[in-house]
């Protein structure tokens, strides 16, 4: 599960910025004002999704909207590109979806 894995990203700035609450794989989570969805998730966890074919974990690559490797799902099935989507309060994100997603 996401909470017992070390995060991929390490915050250097904005550590004391206002907290933004969201849900990650069903668990309450906090990002910081100014976060993209990618930064918020990877400051807590170490992957964004699993691939459709092999099911291997992915965590983005280009961070500039080009590689399309960072798409995550909301609980309602909407797809969001994490690196270009600002974190919004109350987002409910699922990263544990496997091949079936």
């Amino acid at each position, binding site marked *: 599960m996401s909470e017992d894995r*070390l995060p*991929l*990203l*390490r*915050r*250097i*700035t*904005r550590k004391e*910025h206002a907290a933004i609450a969201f849900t990650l794989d069903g668990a309450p989570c906090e990002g910081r*004002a*100014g*976060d*993209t969805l990618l*930064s918020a998730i*990877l*400051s807590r966890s*170490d*992957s*964004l999704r699993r*691939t*459709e*074919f*092999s099911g*291997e*974990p*992915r*965590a*983005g*690559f*280009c*961070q*500039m*909207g*080009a*590689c*399309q*490797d960072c*798409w995550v799902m909301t609980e309602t099935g*909407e*797809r969001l*590109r994490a*690196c*270009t989507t*600002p974190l919004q309060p109350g987002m409910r994100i699922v990263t544990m979806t496997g091949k079936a997603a």
Partner: protein
Amino acid sequence: MSTRPQPLVVGAGPAGIRAAEALVAGGLRPLVVDEAPACGGQIYRQRLVPDGRSTRDLYGSEVGKADRLHAAFAAFEGKIDYWPQALLWNLRDGVADIVVAGATRRVSYDGLVLATGATDRVLPVPGWTLPGVFTLGGSQVALKAQGCAIGSRVVFAGSGPLLYLVAWQYMKAGVEVAAVLDAAPASAKLHLIKALPLDPGIVLRGTRFVAELRLRGVAIRTGIEGLRFEGEGRVSGVAWREGGRERRLACDGVGYGLALRSETQLADLAGCAFRFDERDRAWLPLRDAAGRSSVAGVYLAGDGAGIAGADAAERAGERVALALLEDRGLAFDKARAAGLEAELARIARLRDALEAAFPFPAHWAAAIDDATTLCRCEEVTAGTVREAASRFDIGEINRLKAVSRVGMGRCQGRMCAAASAEVLAAATGKPIEAAGRLRAQAPVKPIPLALQLAAEPAKLPEAAE
């Protein structure tokens, strides 16, 4: 003001900003569309919120250029139309489809400036899809725009000026840089002597980065081969060969890239003719010295038209705007146009020297292991590509796509097309240009399905108000 539709500028990086500025000065009111929430492009990208760092902290020696560009853009207030966070996803004959604020809008334009920029060029190596491996550009975005490091002990690998710049920026930010692994042999850097008279600042800055990295004990290895990233579920180390010896380092983050590649999809949709560029090893849209494409009214500027860097992008952006003004029969400064072209020619010579100093390791393509993923989206391996190439006697990349799915995924080949062409060329023994280029398709990037469907009927409102 004329009653003709407004010019459309795609991209608000250095090229797009200077293009818009010259169009405004020439009496036009352009529409500027950009995917980012704020202007600056990738190189002068701005943070989403202030974070206690100054712009000098963010842009270093380039702070003056960044500040001037951001200020120039702020001064457009009321003089241009600006759609940030907007994706131009389709183009044909003076009409563009743009997703903005949750809806797709159809816009008529008269004069199109494509300033679409670039992303990292990569060749696949084992482990390049592991979480924790990012492009060099992505590593820089994390640090600059988000104030996050990609790890606590980081390795930077590949080639190109960005390799040393990003490593230095991480070191300055207090992150442990375990090593810089340069694909180029140490002797390649001798070519910087040719670059010195063309732009002493750039060469001296690079030299300083290397000296400071060494001083702080960062290992800098050159001429590396057999690069691979290791780890279970996330990256935990890097391995490579050097002078025939195997080497290995533990790390929890990797920045990787082999210089840059141009974003040319929109030029393709606009119908521009392409030519093969030896230096960039890529098919690029044809343009004259002013930046006119092969299609009347379509202009190309910045790294999206061929890699030349941010300083060239500013000049090319202004130059194409002058060409657009001229082609619309408006007054423009001829002497200024000639001066910009002379500067662009000087920078082109500089790029030749830099390319020799940071050469692309084309020979890596033949060495990519068959089991290595080549296409990240569709998870096609290098072996599958080679097998398809030999079984169906394929030497061209669009045919390869049809039989192997390589380049068919969501990124439209942005991350794999250059590598596929290299692998194909290595497998067939033909020159790289024979592999051709992937044809672009609308939408050039994924857009929400609901919007896509809404856009299908031809009954959308004309948005060129």
